């Protein structure tokens, strides 16, 4: 059992759950106390000691039955209810069958448990040894069952029963056999499913290398696969939590500002109310943001993650207005009032599908200056997320200059590295002059760093 728990913990780690040595030690102590008699209690004990984040719950739920499953229900032997003559008949009939089908029939009609080598062999024949992803379980289960001959079962069973009928087996006994075969087939399917799941989990554990988080953070937005983008969305939340605690710690260090009279009086009671230690109110100067995000194909991921991050960090920001543009600008703040950030971002992207070469930042800036100038005042940090590729239309740098005079600062986040600025239809060099800071945000790590500076 101990080895089993160790394997299970390794499996959890392989699936991306962080389990420390101390926690696995706790798990063993917990199991010592509650014992393994009640599976439910055992499960709760492991859950309480190993899983410290509600988000990891589903992983635990998926892996637990694989490691601590019963291996599926046993196959039952129905022949006990047959007369000796009928048993003999069945045995003779089975002996006439060919190799694979005979083995299957023995399991289903005589309740012989499949032995591990049989399962392993069938597994190897369908390539189970290469499976290492949990979602492959269903597919390999089906393939293995076919390998074991279950797809030809109906046919073979009918022939067998007909043969037995000719030999004079009673109808009642035949019905019993048929029913038992169906039940045993279901049990076998479950056993095979467990076997496959266990193998996949083991394989995944063996192949597991350190979580690819760091790698993903550094991966350029331009080369993200769909699955990686999904994984990153998860990561954004953790990143936001990190940034938040860093930002709040930073606020605490402030030594200037308004006098905190209450705290100062309190602290100086010990000096006979002579103010020796002065305390200041911690000043939370939260930035007021206006985001202009390019959601054309080239910058889409970057904008998406930026929006996610900013809205996850809403409590660190006093006010955020957001706009997206492709050909023209569009106010999307309302989406975030209606829905949770993750849902809202999805809806924004869904509603603003990119077209072909229709990005027009110049035009978008013109509309912004015309319709939404009230969002920008001397306290606003204006953030533009774009690669500055304008499809050779007028860049309208004059408008950005006007905005710079109004805003506290303008920060430009470009997913392109500086050496590409100015190539082709890029108007970056002209825009750069108007910005207080330009950050290259080619991957999530760089984006997080940029946001961190923003909250400074």
């Amino acid at each position, binding site marked *: 059992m101990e080895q089993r728990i160790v394997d299970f913990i390794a499996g959890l780690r392989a699936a991306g759950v962080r389990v*420390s040595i101390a926690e696995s030690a706790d798990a063993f102590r*917990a199991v010592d106390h509650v014992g393994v008699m009640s599976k439910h*209690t055992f499960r709760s004990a492991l859950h309480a000691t190993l899983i*410290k984040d509600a988000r990891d*719950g589903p992983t635990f739920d998926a892996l637990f039955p694989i490691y601590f499953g019963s291996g599926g229900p046993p196959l039952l032997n129905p022949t006990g209810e047959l007369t000796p003559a009928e048993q003999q008949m069945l045995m003779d009939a089975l002996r006439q069958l060919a190799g694979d089908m005979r083995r299957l029939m023995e399991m289903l009609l005589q309740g012989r448990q499949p032995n591990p080598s049989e399962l392993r062999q069938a597994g190897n024949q369908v390539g189970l040894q290469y499976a290492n992803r949990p979602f492959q379980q269903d597919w390999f289960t089906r393939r293995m069952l076919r390998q074991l001959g279950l797809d030809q079962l109906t046919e073979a069973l009918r022939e067998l029963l007909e043969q037995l009928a000719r030999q004079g087996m009673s109808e009642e006994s035949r019905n019993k056999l048929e029913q038992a075969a169906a039940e045993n087939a279901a049990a076998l399917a479950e056993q095979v499913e467990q076997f496959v799941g266990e193998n996949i989990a083991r394989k995944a554990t063996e192949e597991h290398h350190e979580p690819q988080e760091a790698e993903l953070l550094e991966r350029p937005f331009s080369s993200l696969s769909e699955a990686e983008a999904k994984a990153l969305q998860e990561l954004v939340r953790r990143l936001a939590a990190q940034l938040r605690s860093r930002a709040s710690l930073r606020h605490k260090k402030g030594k200037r500002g308004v006098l905190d009279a209450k705290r100062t009086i309190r602290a100086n009671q010990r000096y006979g109310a002579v103010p020796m230690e002065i305390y200041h109110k911690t000043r939370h100067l939260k930035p007021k943001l206006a985001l202009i995000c390019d959601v054309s194909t080239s910058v889409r991921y970057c904008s998406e993650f930026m929006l996610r991050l900013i809205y996850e960090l809403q409590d660190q920001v006093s006010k955020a207005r957001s706009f997206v543009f492709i050909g023209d600008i569009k106010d999307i703040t309302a989406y975030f009032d209606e829905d949770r950030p993750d849902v809202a971002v999805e809806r924004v992207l869904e*509603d603003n*599908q990119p077209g072909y070469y229709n990005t027009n930042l110049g035009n978008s800036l013109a509309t912004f200056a015309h319709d939404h100038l009230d969002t920008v005042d001397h306290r606003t940090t204006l953030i533009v997320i774009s690669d500055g590729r304008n499809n050779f239309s007028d860049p309208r740098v004059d408008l950005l200059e006007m905005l710079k005079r109004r805003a506290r600062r303008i920060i430009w986040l470009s997913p392109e590295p500086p050496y590409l600025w100015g190539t082709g239809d890029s108007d970056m060099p002209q825009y750069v002059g108007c910005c207080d800071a330009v950050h290259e945000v080619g991957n999530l790590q760089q984006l997080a760093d940029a946001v961190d500076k923003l909250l400074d």
Partner: protein
Amino acid sequence: MFNSTDEVREGLNGQQYVASDEINTVVLLAEKLQKPILCEGPAGVGKTELAKAWAGATGRRLIRLQCYEGLDETKALYEWEYAKQMLYTQLLRDKLHDVLAGSQTLAQAADRIAQEEDVFFSERFLLPRPLLQAVTAGDPVLLLIDEIDRADAEFEAFLLEVLSDFQVSVPELGTKKATSIPAVMLTSNNTRELSEALKRRCLYLFIDYPSVEAELRIVKLRAPDLAPQLARQAVELVQRLRQLDLKKSPSVSETIDWARALVALNAAQLDRATLENTLTVLLKHEQDVQRAKRAISAPSAGSGGTGTAAGGAETPDIEYRNLRPRRRSE
């Protein structure tokens, strides 16, 4: 003390707390391993209530520390009562004269005062806050640290120290060590991520909204006067409301409040009028109330409002989702 999950169940039940098997196991383990429980879950599912029931069942005294932003050591651990010290110094002035009488030099006087120092830095002037109370208590106690996620990150780090060795050092008095290790429970509403270090030291318990049957048991226990038929209807409705995309889902405590409200109003059945009048007990946002009303009336009103072809009347929440205003999508 508890020795099996059944005993835990009995104990908590005795305190009118309906606990799931998981809760029983975790409480048992907390007793056995002497580890804190970190309890997370949506607001109002009975996290704080569990601590009270646990304390009641084991005969522990409950010491509660409510966390908030800006909570610091002086409010959580201990504080000297400076005002009292000052007052005593004033009142004891004459006595001090006596002590100092006859001292020849300043140094001699200072020495004499130093001998009396203990008087002013004694437990008499020490104001113990919840953490120190829990450590120094002679009787068995349960320390409830409520809503730890609201406290700052630094406080969390400080708490870690206290929870790891259950000792507190007061520079003037020396180190106080707990004679018996108190049971500790932390609750969090998950408004921010807690540190890995804190999570590692705790047993983790996630309490989710209960199932229909469990919630029905709770309602029967807490609002026994409600007719069984009505109780079931009420609980089923609450469960349905939780499926909706609301700003704040109705909690178990709100279900109980609602059940009691129904009793107080002498409601015989859950008709439309009763529902509309009492829905505000369950839902605390105007927007939520509107959404809920729409969702509840959707199935009975047939294809009311915008006629969506999809979805049957038996799944109002799904139909409701379709009804949500959608922006132009191409």
